[in-house]
């Protein structure tokens, strides 16, 4: 008897909380997500509108960079989310890989398009900011190069899904790439401290008080929240579509 108790205990220890298993039921997921999406999408769009007007027209100009600094309101949110979405993608990929929860693997896969878009935008808006301020669109310094590697990780992750005939194997291979690629995230974040770089140091995401005036910081936080809400809505909408796609394939074994 003590043996059974021990084995149940052992089994229990490796289980995820119940709500995570409930989420794996497609019908439950569809209903829940259908209710959550408007609560992300609508505030996301409203905040995006507020943030754009605030950042472009109401925030004061920088005393050194003039109005070119306003690029911060698209550059920093996309850069921050390029890393945040990557972490969400890697964690859900890990859950899908270890506990074989297909829904987690799906969520992970659906993080990639918006994550890649944010990474591309961080690089592109950075170039558009770099040209007037540094005099160059691009330098091969640590921050820029590691962010470019992040874009390749996203693209590789998406390509691996398509690279195998069995989508299950593709999903697992991609998950391993996503997990290995996590090493790049602290490299991006600390690159401005570890190496000499043209890119400025952290002004917001650091332990001290942010070194940016509140009148400039507030619209930035609004934009960051807007991008985060819209990204989350996007991932859920894509995943909901996947659940619908499965209903169109009646021959599937699940």
């Amino acid at each position, binding site marked *: 008897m003590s043996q059974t108790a021990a084995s149940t205990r052992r089994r229990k220890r490796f289980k995820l909380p119940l709500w995570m298993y409930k989420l794996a039921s497609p019908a439950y997921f569809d209903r829940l997500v259908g209710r959550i999406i408007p609560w992300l999408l609508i505030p996301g769009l409203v905040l995006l509108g507020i943030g754009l007007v605030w950042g472009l027209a109401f925030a004061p100009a920088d005393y050194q960079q003039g109005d070119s600094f306003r690029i911060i309101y698209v550059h920093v949110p996309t850069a921050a989310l390029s890393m945040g979405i990557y972490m969400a993608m890697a964690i859900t990929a890990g859950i899908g890989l270890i506990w074989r929860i297909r829904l987690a693997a799906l969520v992970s896969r659906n993080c990639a398009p918006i994550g890649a878009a944010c990474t591309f935008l961080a690089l592109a808006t950075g170039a*558009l900011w770099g040209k007037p301020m540094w005099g160059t669109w691009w330098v091969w310094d640590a921050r820029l190069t590691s962010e470019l590697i992040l874009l390749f990780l996203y693209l590789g992750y998406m390509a691996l899904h398509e690279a195998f005939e069995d989508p299950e194997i593709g999903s697992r291979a991609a998950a391993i790439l996503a997990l290995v690629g996590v090493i790049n995230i602290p490299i991006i974040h600390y690159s401005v401290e570890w190496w000499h770089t043209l890119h400025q140091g952290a002004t917001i995401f650091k332990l001290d008080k942010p070194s940016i005036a509140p009148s400039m910081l507030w619209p930035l936080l609004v934009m960051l929240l807007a991008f985060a809400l819209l990204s989350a809505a*996007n991932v859920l*909408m894509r995943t909901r579509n996947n659940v*619908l796609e499965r209903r169109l394939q009646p021959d599937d074994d699940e």
Partner: protein
Amino acid sequence: MHFSNWQEFLAMGGYAPFVWSAFALTLIILGIVLVTPVLRRRQLLRQLQRLERLREQENTQ
């Protein structure tokens, strides 16, 4: 309001090409990524409707 008129706002202190293309590019790409699943969902719902209609027809025959 930081700017005193529309011309000043559009000029962005001389950085107009950089500022406006950064914002335009962001909105275009974000828009594409956000709209894609909405269109896909409509397409899927149409397909599902057609499938159900077909099944009903088979049942009545």
